[in-house]
């Protein structure tokens, strides 16, 4: 259906017995070819939303269409156009990478010759050709995630759901996966719905970000627009003489509220924006504080989360103790 959004959800709700509303009336629209980042802490409702949109969990209320198909009435049609790498890299430790791809391709009904070619192509694409005939039980976390991604792509899906694809990965593996997601969106026009609790990931990959907290979308827009909306940068100062740290904090406190910094530094969010930077430098100079390093930090998506919810993204999951993490909220 030309012109139709890749994903549309209206008033999507999921309640669990004796639990809170894991998803509490979500509306969203993701355009074809877009990378949509769904950002929020553990237990915010990200995975539950993905499970509903991928037909693995019926919503309690609301509707959604994925690839032009209703998730409730046309589940099989939805599954035919989507690929998904869910939160757990769901692999069989006793099978090899190649055997996984062959099985997945066969279950999707690919002809024999195409199964082999597609498997070889995807193994090469995710850098697993050399490890293709080794049992997956011996793979590293990054290799498992890359195989997971390859499996999600076997049947040429138009829409890809990635549920926290880089959680637990080292920096190198994370970067490799990011590159692959960017390539998929840019080269093949695949729509990507990516959940993450990493600000950097959403910032780096997503054309638009939806910030979810306690089952509701609290902010949505491009990362730049969201940051510009709350717009206050922070300044971090490392005094040359460590004994001046206390006085440095006192000076900075005149310009805004304190924010987290390294133990040797002081930092504040500038109440008057980056225009205050020169005043900060003058004030430090007036107090005869010699500065080893002074850095201006642009606003982050965490600042957006803080502005919208009153909590920082990093701390939100811990404050929400008692709310089950997404993966646990979803019945097996």
């Amino acid at each position, binding site marked *: 259906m030309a012109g139709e959004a890749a994903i549309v959800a209206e008033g999507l709700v999921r309640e669990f017995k004796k639990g809170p509303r894991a998803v509490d009336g979500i509306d969203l629209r993701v355009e074809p070819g877009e990378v949509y980042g769904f950002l929020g802490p553990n237990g915010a409702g990200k995975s539950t939303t993905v499970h509903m949109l991928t037909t693995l969990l019926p919503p309690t209320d609301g509707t959604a269409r994925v690839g032009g198909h209703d998730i409730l009435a046309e589940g099989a049609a939805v599954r035919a156009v989507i690929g998904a790498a869910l939160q757990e890299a769901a692999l069989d430790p*006793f099978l090899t990478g190649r055997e996984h791809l062959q099985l997945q391709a066969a279950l999707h009904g690919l002809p024999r010759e195409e199964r082999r070619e597609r498997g070889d192509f995807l193994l090469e694409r995710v850098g697993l050709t050399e490890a293709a005939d080794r049992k997956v039980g011996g793979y590293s976390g990054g290799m498992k995630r890359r195989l997971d991604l390859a499996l999600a792509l076997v049947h040429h899906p138009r829409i890809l759901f990635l549920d926290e694809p880089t959680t637990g990965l080292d920096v190198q593996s994370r970067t490799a996966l990011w590159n692959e997601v960017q390539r998929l969106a840019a080269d093949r026009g695949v729509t990507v719905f990516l959940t993450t609790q990493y600000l950097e990931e959403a910032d780096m990959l997503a054309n638009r970000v939806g910030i979810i907290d306690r089952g509701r979308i609290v902010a949505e827009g491009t990362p730049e627009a969201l940051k510009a909306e709350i717009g206050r940068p922070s300044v971090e100062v490392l005094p040359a003489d460590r004994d001046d740290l206390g006085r440095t904090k006192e000076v900075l406190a005149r310009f805004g509220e304190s924010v987290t910094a390294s133990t040797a530094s002081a930092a504040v969010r500038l109440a008057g924006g980056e225009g205050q930077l020169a005043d900060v430098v003058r004030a430090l100079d007036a107090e005869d504080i010699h500065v080893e390093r002074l850095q201006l930090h642009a606003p982050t998506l965490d600042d957006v989360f803080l502005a919208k919810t009153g909590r920082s993204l990093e701390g939100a999951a811990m404050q929400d103790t008692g709310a089950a993490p997404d993966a646990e909220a979803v019945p097996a």
Partner: protein
Amino acid sequence: MSSAVALQVGHLARRSVVRTLRQPAMVVPSLFFPLILLSVNSGGLESATNLPGFPTDTYLDFALAVTFVQGALFSANSAGTNVANDIESGFLKRLSLTPLRRTALLVGQLSGVVTLGLIQAVTFLIAGLVAGAGIEAGFAGALVIVALALLISLGFGTIGAFVALRTGSGEAVQGIFPLLFAALFLSSVSLPRDLIQTDWFRTVATYNPVSYMLEAIRSLILTGWDGEALALGFACAGGVALVALVAASAALRTAMVRT
């Protein structure tokens, strides 16, 4: 069966067989434990053959049938653990996202059980013959023993799969293992039913379908072709398999949720 479903069954069956054979910890005990028990019992209980009415003069011939049923009990553990692993790891969700038919999944999963059952049955037959047991019903009888052993394995394996699908837990599967062993030992496992002196034990053994599975295999080893024993044995094994398959299919509908 459509070609698409046949393709799905074939690939899932291959996966089930491959992953079973790649777990020596699952295969080896299921072969050795019954043989060790056979060796202990055929030595230690030899004097039971002196009881009036005991159907053979070597306890090895009598006890050989037990290995096939005991091996099948390991199938419950193997099938259940494999299914529980798939649920716990999220692999079942991955399969749910493909156009996979539930029937194909169940049939495919149970193929590994049947393969393990075949390896067990052939091993037990060869070990029994090497140890000096004889099969009165001859080569054809040996083939029927293998067929019945496979049906028993399928039944117990499906019980394991059912428990895994209902609970999603490998621990729960391990928990039913002692119960199934109790069912084995409350049957005519050590003595013919008419020689069991304790009334309640004899009654339990009479109502226990495992007794008839044992007696069907035993009849082929000890007396040749006994239509009634074979009919009862196949009926009991088939009945257990059928009930377990119906229950597992229903459990799969719940475990494999998708719209």
